[in-house]
Structures are given as structure tokens and as C-alpha cells.
């Protein structure tokens, strides 16, 4: 669906980008296929701060899981060019220097790449709300699109499937350490997305072990759990 926002004005798109944008406007995600056959898109973003509503999107890293395997060829690693460098504080976390921030793709192209990469797949991230908010905001601002794709939060699914480990595991690092997953470059968007994808493979196995056959069922279970914890 294309939202007719009046403000802020969308950046002008060239013909090719416009065509891509139109093609991406609609996407369907089928959550009722068997878990083992699903295509998943595991993503991590880097931002100029920890405020999902305001801080700029710096980089997107994503890998695809197809039929239970992480496909190395299909991995996305894009930096978004910034009008100006962000605060030094975040550079310490992400290690992206000022010059690197200005390298990369124009934001609208990076986001088109992202939408094409993730097309038709449920998104997975650790603490997914943050990545979801940042990406949706950027996509709306740059492309004027609101994509309604399902998101799964590994940080919520992991404790559900491994309740025994949950008390000791809060952060992504805790879960990675618990399962002995190494990260080749922590806080790099693609490296974190890849590590999250390995975690997701383990969670998919565990879900099937627990007779959860589809993403749809998994989502139902998560909703029930959320409902239980809220009420």
C-alpha cells in the first residue's frame, strides 16, 4: 500500500528506482508452509544511536535461510550514505568511522535492495522491534511505502524454546555463548545478522522438536505467551 504522505516530501526517484519501488509495493508472506521449507530473512541494522524513532539508519546486514540452510551467497550488506556524520558515541559501538558513514549507497537504493532481498520472507531479528521500527521508518521516509511483513523476534522465541537457558540469557551475546556460536565481527550488521541466523537455525530445529510445524503456529504460540505475561 502506498501512503499519501504530504510531509516530509519523498526524495525524487529516478525511473529505474520508481519501477523497483512499484514492484515492491505489494508482498505476500505465507506463514503456513512447513517451517523447514520457509525462506527467512534474518536482519540486523546499525543506527546512529539507540533511539529507533530518530537516529539515522547507517547499515543493513541480512542473510537468507532457505530450506533450513543459511545461503551464504544471498547475503546483504549495505551502508547508507549520510548527509553528516553521527555522534562520536555511536562510532564507538559500531566502529563505523565518519568516512565510512559517507560511503555506501544512497538511502533509497539501499532500502530497495533490502526490500528486494527480504521480499516474501518473514523477518527475523534479535530484539526485532528495534530493527522493525528503524527499517519501517526509513522505508516510509525514503520510499513512501508501508510494508506489512511479519517479524519474528529471536529474543522472544529463544526463551520460549529453551526455558532452562533463559534465566542466564538476556542479550544476543548470552544466547550465542550458550550455543557456542562465534561472531566474526560483533556489531557489524551482517556479522550480527549471520550469528542471529545460526541461532535461528537452532531455534527452528527446537521448534520442530516441539511439534511446531509452521511459522503461523509459532506466531500463535508467541501471542499466547505475550497474552499470558500481560494479563
Amino acid at each position, binding site marked *: 500500500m502506498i501512503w499519501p504522505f504530504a510531509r516530509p516530501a519523498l526524495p525524487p526517484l529516478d525511473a529505474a528506482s520508481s519501477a523497483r519501488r512499484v514492484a515492491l509495493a505489494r508482498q505476500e508472506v505465507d506463514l503456513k508452509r512447513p517451517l523447514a521449507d520457509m525462506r527467512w530473512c534474518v536482519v540486523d541494522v546499525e543506527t546512529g544511536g539507540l533511539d529507533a524513532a530518530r537516529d539515522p539508519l547507517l547499515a543493513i546486514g541480512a542473510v537468507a535461510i532457505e530450506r533450513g540452510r543459511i545461503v551464504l551467497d544471498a547475503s546483504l550488506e549495505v551502508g547508507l550514505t549520510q548527509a553528516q556524520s553521527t555522534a562520536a558515541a555511536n562510532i564507538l559501538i559500531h566502529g563505523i568511522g565518519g568516512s565510512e558513514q559517507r560511503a555506501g549507497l544512497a538511502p533509497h537504493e539501499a532500502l530497495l535492495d533490502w526490500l528486494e532481498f527480504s521480499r516474501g520472507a518473514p523477518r527475523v531479528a534479535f530484539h526485532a522491534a528495534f530493527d522493525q521500527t528503524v527499517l519501517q521508518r526509513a522505508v516510509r521516509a525514503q520510499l513512501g511505502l508501508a510494508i506489512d511483513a511479519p517479524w519474528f523476534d529471536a529474543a522472544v522465541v529463544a526463551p520460549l524454546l529453551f526455558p532452562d537457558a533463559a534465566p542466564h540469557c538476556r542479550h544476543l551475546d548470552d544466547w550465542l555463548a550458550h550455543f557456542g556460536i562465534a561472531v566474526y565481527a560483533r556489531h557489524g550488521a551482517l556479522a550480527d545478522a549471520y550469528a542471529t541466523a545460526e541461532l535461528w*537455525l*537452532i531455534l527452528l530445529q*527446537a521448534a520442530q522438536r516441539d511439534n511446531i510445524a509452521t511459522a503461523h503456529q509459532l506466531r500463535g504460540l508467541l501471542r499466547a505467551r505475550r497474552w499470558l505475561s500481560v494479563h
Partner: protein
Amino acid sequence: MTHIIPLANSLHRATIDALRRQAPFSAMAEDELLWLVQRLSVAYFARDAVLLPPADTPPDALFIVKQGTVAGATAEGHTVLQLATGEMFPLGALLAGRGAANRYSAATDAFCYLLPAADFHALLAKSPEFHDFCTRRIASLLEESQRAVQSEYALALDDESRFSRPLESLVRRTPLSALPATPLVDALAALVAARVGSVVVADAAGQPLGILTLKDVLARVTLAGVPLDTPISAVMTPDPATLSVDAPVADALVLMARQGIHHIPLVREGKLVGVVSEKDIFALRRLSVEGITSAIARSEDPARLPALALDIGDLAHSLLAQGMDAENLTAIISSLNDRLTERIIALESEADAALAGLRWCWLALGSEGRMEQTLATDQDNALIFTEASEAQRDALLAFALRVNHRLDACGFPLCRGGIMASNPKWCLSASGWQQQFTQWIDHGSPDSLLNASIFFDFRPLTGDAALALDLRAWLNRAAQKNQRFLHQMAGNALRNRPPLGLVRDFVLSDDNAHPRTIDLKLNGATPFVDAARIFALASGSSQTNTAKRLRAAAPALRIPDAELADWNRAFHFLQLLRLRHQHEQQRMRIAPDNHLDPDTLNPLDRRILKEALRQARKVQARLALDYQL
């Protein structure tokens, strides 16, 4: 030079770096690695999950272990492989385009890279380093086939099996023990005399009450200035940790490590039956040809030789597991058995005054004569002497009988056919042997031919070797003169056909005792052995070893080098299969034999076995041609 490849994102680069820590990826070019990485996917396998079952169809992907351990097990469930980070499987199946023989499952939670089979083959064509690494392993299987397939893994398992056998197997002597009231002076004197490291204090019923080791003596006796008439019970370590003799060796190792002790009394039904020391256990790992040879040479007590015979078996197992080829391995087994037999003969003959002044020679016959002993071998031996009185001959027979029994105690069972030096029929003077041989050569009956096949492989083992060498020279002349005899030998050899079937791969035995098996000795190795013997007799060669006989006869018979090499490879592959089969049986505590069920072989080995039997037929065809049979 490292050049940055623009297409490689950080994940690709990190994967390349990770792969590069292992062969063959460490030697591969950057662009080949990137090509590889872009075709990989990553899968996760929870512990015990099956990655690849045995199959009839070729696998659709190559697995490279990324993290964790993958185990490969045979159809019977024996784990034969442990694959760790960077290792690939199933290479053989992918290369040969056949189904995987082993079941691969995750020994721990594991991540693996998968490369589609088509890409695997493309990479073989693309990267010489990758190609070399993958095919050289298999080439050794397909062509020379002399290496144990799963050498390093088998070695690890072999160590495991050594540590899982009962402690009883380490008990080499009656333990040194003392009653609690024994004065220290007596106990320590006994310790020195027995050259051991500890004395166990036990009550009259043999129940261990304490232990005193040499180390304890220093602190508790010498430095403490305890008078030597003190009863040993005053300084012993009371209530020592003990183990049942039935407990596995590993238990002793654990107990020693846990309690920081070096000696453990072993008990059966509460009574002391032995002591195991840390040294005994670690000696298990230090088996070597030199070590065993010198231990045999040093041994003054024939009662200790059976333990050394066990060491020979252990060494053979370990060399087999390390992938030693059959030709060298059977030669090593035979020569260590020679040393052992020589030592027994020396100990038995030196002490025997009745043998003084006699010229005699101990003859090794059969497989021992050919230096082709496997792990299952009974005695085949004889004696030759110059001249002896009736009394001297009796003394020789009595001496031979003692040697035969000592050999029996060392695990070489008495020959069921009575082909032993203690049998008066096979303890003959030089002229007696010539008469006997002449009779066999002239007679040509089935019995004569059978005897000829055993006795004509004789070799001097110890004593006056000239007697045996003269007999060999005489025999070669006699056999060469008698074409009819060689013709009969050839005809007899050809009656034993290699069991290759037209319909199925193999003709299996219908023998009830060993259903559905191939006799690797009779139907596999014997055709080569028989043919080689005839070739040697015909050409006047004095070699007794099959491979050497074939090599020596080849020029005269104009056997092309390539054919000769194939024959010897085939023969040694059959010998290797026998050794592996017997090794496996001994590990399972079954008496070793030569009856192999070909279905237990992996498809590659089956193919090689078929090829080896085809070579046996070729040798026979050559024999048939030479003797117009």
C-alpha cells in the same frame, strides 16, 4: 599478494578466512575460495541428528564441518570416523558416484557447510589443490589399496579398546605381598629382589590391608629413621584403593589420577591377585618393534614370554590401525614371532645337556616359512639334524615338545594336523628329509601334494642354517628335474578357484559353519601362494615369501612388470583384508579366522576385493598356460 575482491562482503571474507585455517583450503587461491563460499550453505544439526544415512544413490552434497563433531559409523554401528572442523565427507562416495557407506550423525551439536555435488565436481576441475587433496586419499584406496581405510580413526579406537580391556590383561606376575607382621628388612629385600615398585600387605587370606611403595620408603622409613625390624604394617598406607581384575584399564587410570597414586592392588573376590602400576599402563602406549625385540632378548624366564606375545599382537593391531601395508606388517609379525620362537628355543635348548654336540636346525613351515603370518596362526614347524643316536633323537623330540608347548602358551595353537617338530614324522635327518621329499615328488598323490605345499615353504629359523640351505638347494634340483610333479602341483592349485560369481559379485560359502562368507585365505590368498611356489620351484629360486617368489620368477617367466605389480597388490590387499578382519574379531573377543562376509565391506573395498580375486584368476590362468592345463 592479497587482492580485495569487490564482490566479497564481510561474511564471505570471514568464511574464506575460517576455511583457510584448514587444508586444502589453506593452499587454494582467493578467487577459488570465493567461488566456493558463494556456493555454500550452512546447516545446523542437533546432537544425534543424522546428516547423511547410508544410501544407494550418490550424495547430493559435500559436507564440510564448520563447528562441532560429526561421527561416521558402519552399518553395524561401529564408529569409524570422527570429523572435526574443516574436515569433509563423504569424499569417497562423491568421487566414486556411489552411495555413502557410512551413517554420518552429529556427535555434538554441529554446524556444517554444504556444497552441492555438481559444484563439488566443478571445484575439483577448477582447483588443482582441492583436486589433489580429495583424490589422493581415494587413489590410495582404489589403486594400491594397502592402507587401512580409516587409519587414524582406527588408531584412536585401538587405544580406546586397550583401555577398555580388563586389568587382568596387564597382570604379568604374581604380586609381591607380605603379612602385616613382616619386618621391614624382609619386605624391602623382597622388593629389591623382585625389582618392583611396591609391596602389598595382605592378611593370611590374601585380603589387601595396605601397600608400601618405594616412594613411601624414602619418607616414612629412611628419613623418619624407622628401625628395619619394625613390622611393615606400621608404615604402610592402610586401606589402599583396590580394583577388581575384571575392571577396565581405564578405571585404574582414573583412580590413579584422582588419588595421585601409582600402584593399585587388584583383587578377585576380595583376594589379592596382582598389582598394576602406572608404568604398566603407559607401557601399553609404547609398543615398538625395538622394545619388544629387546624385551624378548632380555627375557630369561619362558613364563614371561606369553605376555610379550600379547605385545606382538597389540603392536600388530596398532600398526594395522596406523595404515601399515600388509607386506610389511606380515613381515614384522613374522619376524617378531621368529624372535620369540628363537628365544624359546634358546631357553629350552641351552639348558638341555642331551643336545650338546648335535647339529640341528629348527624349520619354520607354512605361512611362518613364507614370512606371511597374520594374527591367526597355528604352529607349523619341523626339525632337521645331521646324525643322531636313538637317544639323541629322543632328546630332540623332547626338546621340540617343550618348545611346541611354550609356543602354544604364547598363543600359537598346536597344529591340528600334527605338523610340528615334536612329531617323530617331522623330526628327520637331512637324508630322511630328502627321502620324504623324493617320495612326495615322485608319488604325486593328493596327500603328497598337500604336504609339499606346506613343507616346501620351509625356512631355517634357528640352529644350523646350513642344513636347511642344503636341503633347499637339493629340493630345487629335484623339483626342476621332475616336470610331472610341477604339473601335478599346478593342476592341484587350479582346483581351488577364486570365488567370483557370474550372477552375484561373489560366490559365497554354503558351509554351515560360516554361511555367506568368503574364505579369504583358501580362496583369496592361496591361489597366489600356490602359484608363486610352483614358479619358484620351476625357476630354482630359494625364496619362500610369495611376493619375493613372484618377483624373482618374473624375469624368467617373462611376466610384465605391470602385471607382476598388480598381482602383488592384489595379494597384499587380500592379506590386509584378512588382518583387518582378524583385528576386528579380536577386538570383539572372537577367535580370529579368515571367513569374511563381503557385505560387511564398504562398496569401495568390495570393488577392490573383486578386482583382487580377478587377479588371482589371472595368476591361475598364467599357471594353466605354463602347464597346459
